[in-house]
C-alpha cells in the first residue's frame, strides 16, 4: 500500500490501465495531454491498444467502435474537444454502449484558455448532444478520488451499458498528491454476448442507433429512461461535511468543493454552523440530500468555477424554501478560500430573501470586482 506522488492526469491514466483498459484513443489538448502521453508509453508496453487519433471526432468514434466489442475503452480530452464529441456521445448512448471519457475542463467559451474551469457542467451533465440521453458524470476533488472513481467508472459503465464521464478540471489534472494505486485487474479480452465479435452471441449482432420507425425509437428511449431511474436509485454519490448541525450549507464539487472545504473549516473555527455538500456524482445528481437539507437549513451557497451551471439544478431542488446564493469565478479563474468565506458571511448576514436572483446578485458583485473590460 505504498503511496506515490502522482499528477492527476497520470494517475487517471494509470488507474484506467489497472482497471483493465483495453483500448485508448485520444488527441492532445492542454490540460489533459499528460494522460495521453502516459498511455502512449504504457499501453503498448502491455500490448494494449493506443491510438493518437486524428481529432477528437476520430477519438470518440474509435471509442464507439471499440465499445461495440464490449471491452474497456476510453478517451480523454478537454472542453473544446468534448464539444467535438457531442455527436459521438449521442451515438454511444443511442447504442447502449459502455465507455469512459475524461474531460479535464478549461476556461471558455471558444478557444478560451487552459486554466481550470467547471463550465462544461451543462454539456456533460444535461447533454450537449441531440436527443434524449444521459451520461453518468463523476467529479473527483482529489487525485486519490480521481483514481478511485476511474476504477469505478469502468464498472458502472459496464453495469448500465452507459458512458461514464470523469469530469476533472485543470487543477485535478495537473496537481500531484499522494495516492495509492489499485492492483492490476485481469483484463477481459473476449467480447460479451451482446457485443460484436463475441463467441457467445446467438447469431448476428448488430449495434446501431438508427430506429427509422419512431415507435421503435420511442420504446428504446423509454427503456433507456427506465434504466436511468435505476442509475438514479443506485449511483448517487456525494460527501457531506459538518451537516448534522449545519444552519447553512455550501455546495460545490471538484476543485470548487475542496476549496469550499477550506472556507467551511475556517467558518467552523469562527463558530459558524456551516456544512458542505460535495457532489461526487453530478449525474445522477445528489438531489435527495439537498432536498432534505432545504427543509432544515437556513440557506445555501453554491460555489462553482463557472457562471452557475449546477446552480440551476440546486435552485430547482430547493424550490424557494430557503435562499440559494451563488459564488462563482469564470474563464479559468479559481476562487480562493477567502472569497468563499466572504460569500459565506454574506449569506449568514444577508437578508434571506428566497426570491432573490442569485445569479444576478453575484454577477453584479463580480462585475464590480473585475469589470467588463469595456
Amino acid at each position, binding site marked *: 500500500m505504498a503511496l506515490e506522488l502522482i499528477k492527476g492526469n497520470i494517475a487517471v491514466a494509470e488507474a484506467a490501465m489497472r482497471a483493465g483498459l483495453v483500448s485508448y484513443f485520444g488527441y492532445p489538448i492542454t490540460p489533459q495531454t499528460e494522460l495521453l502521453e502516459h498511455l502512449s508509453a504504457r499501453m503498448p508496453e502491455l500490448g494494449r491498444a493506443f491510438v493518437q487519433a486524428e481529432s477528437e471526432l476520430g477519438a470518440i468514434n474509435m471509442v464507439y467502435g471499440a465499445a461495440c466489442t464490449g471491452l474497456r475503452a476510453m478517451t480523454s480530452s478537454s472542453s473544446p474537444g468534448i464539444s467535438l464529441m457531442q455527436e*459521438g456521445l449521442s451515438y454511444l448512448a443511442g447504442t447502449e454502449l459502455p465507455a469512459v471519457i475524461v474531460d479535464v475542463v478549461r476556461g471558455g467559451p471558444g478557444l478560451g484558455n487552459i486554466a481550470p474551469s467547471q463550465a462544461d457542467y451543462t454539456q456533460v451533465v444535461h447533454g450537449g448532444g441531440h436527443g434524449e440521453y444521459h451520461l453518468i458524470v463523476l467529479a473527483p476533488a482529489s487525485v486519490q478520488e480521481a483514481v478511485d472513481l476511474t476504477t469505478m467508472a469502468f464498472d458502472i459503465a459496464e453495469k448500465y451499458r452507459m458512458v461514464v464521464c470523469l469530469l476533472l478540471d485543470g487543477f485535478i489534472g495537473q496537481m500531484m498528491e499522494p495516492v495509492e494505486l489499485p492492483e492490476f485487474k485481469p483484463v477481459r479480452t473476449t467480447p460479451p454476448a451482446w457485443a460484436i465479435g463475441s463467441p457467445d452471441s446467438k447469431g448476428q449482432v448488430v449495434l446501431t442507433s438508427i430506429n427509422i420507425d419512431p415507435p421503435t425509437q420511442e420504446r428504446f428511449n423509454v427503456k433507456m429512461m427506465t434504466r436511468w431511474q435505476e442509475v438514479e436509485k443506485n449511483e448517487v454519490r456525494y460527501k457531506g461535511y459538518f451537516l448534522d448541525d449545519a444552519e447553512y450549507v455550501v455546495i460545490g464539487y471538484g476543485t470548487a468543493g475542496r476549496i469550499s472545504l477550506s472556507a467551511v473549516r475556517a467558518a467552523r473555527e469562527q463558530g459558524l454552523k456551516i456544512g458542505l455538500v460535495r457532489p461526487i456524482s453530478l449525474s445522477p445528481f445528489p438531489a435527495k440530500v439537498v432536498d432534505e437539507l432545504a427543509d432544515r437549513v437556513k440557506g445555501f451557497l453554491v460555489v462553482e468555477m463557472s457562471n452557475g451551471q449546477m446552480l440551476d439544478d440546486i435552485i430547482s431542488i430547493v424550490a424557494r424554501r430557503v435562499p440559494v446564493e451563488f459564488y462563482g469565478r469564470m474563464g479559468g479563474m479559481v476562487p480562493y478560500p477567502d472569497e468563499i468565506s466572504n460569500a459565506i458571511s454574506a449569506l449568514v448576514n444577508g437578508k434571506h430573501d428566497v426570491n432573490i436572483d442569485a445569479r444576478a446578485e453575484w454577477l453584479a458583485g463580480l462585475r464590480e470586482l473585475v469589470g467588463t473590460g469595456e
Partner: protein
Amino acid sequence: MTETDVKVVYKRPLGFTDRTTHYCPGCTHGVAHRLIAEVLEEMGELNNTIGVAPVGCAVFAYNYFNFDFVEAAHGRAPAMATGIKRTLPNKIVFTYQGDGDLASMGMGEIVAAAARGEHFTVIFINNTNYGMTGGQMAPTTLPGQKTSSSPLGRDVETQGYPIRTAELLATLDGAAFVARRSLHDARSIRNAKRAIRTAFEAQKQGLGFSMIELLSICPTNWGLKPAAARTWLAEHMLPYYPVGDFKVSTAVSEMKIGGN
C-alpha cells in the same frame, strides 16, 4: 460431366440474409454487397467478419449481411473500424461507405486511417451524389452534372472540382492496396470482385490499409433507368475516374491468394 449432371454456376451467397433490400431497382449497391459476401465466403471468413455500415443509402446494410455489423456516424466509419480492429485484431473488418460519407463528411477520418495503415478494408461506393438524402451534389459529382443542390449543373468555379479519392489516398504510405473498379457491366463486376478479394486478403495477411472505389449508378437520383444509368456511368464517369490500381505495396504485389 455427363449430360444429367447439374452444376450450380451461381447462387445467392451464404453471407446474405433472406431479406429483400431497400435499394432502388438496378442500384449497384446490391452488386457491391454481393461481391463482398462472395469474397468473404470464398475466404472462409464469414464468421470472422465485422462490417461497419455508413450513413447513406447503405445504412441498413446489416439487414442484408448475416454477420456482425455496426452502424457508424456519418463519415466516421474509418474511425469506428479503427476502434474495432485495434481492439479485436484477429477479425476481418471493413467499412462500406458512400461518396458523401467518405469523401466529404469523413475525409479526415479516411485519410488518417489510410496514413496510419489501419488493417481494415474500405469498400467505397462512388455514385456521384448523395443518394439517401435525395441526390445532392457530392464531392464526386462531375463538372456540369445536375443534382438537387447544383440545379444548373456543377459549376466548377463556385462548386469546385470532383475528388479522385483513390488517387488521393494512393499518396499515402500507409495504404497497401488502393484500386478503382466499376460495376456497370459483367466484366467490370468480375474485375471488381478480384480487387475486393485482393483487398481482403491484404487485410488478412496484415499488409495494411486497403480501399476499393466502386463506380456505381444511382438511377433514382440521376433520373435515369438502370440501363441508361449504366451507359451514363461508362460514358461520363469512366473518363474522369479511370479504373485501375493506384497503390499496390510491394507486399501486396507479392501476396499469394489462397483458395479458389
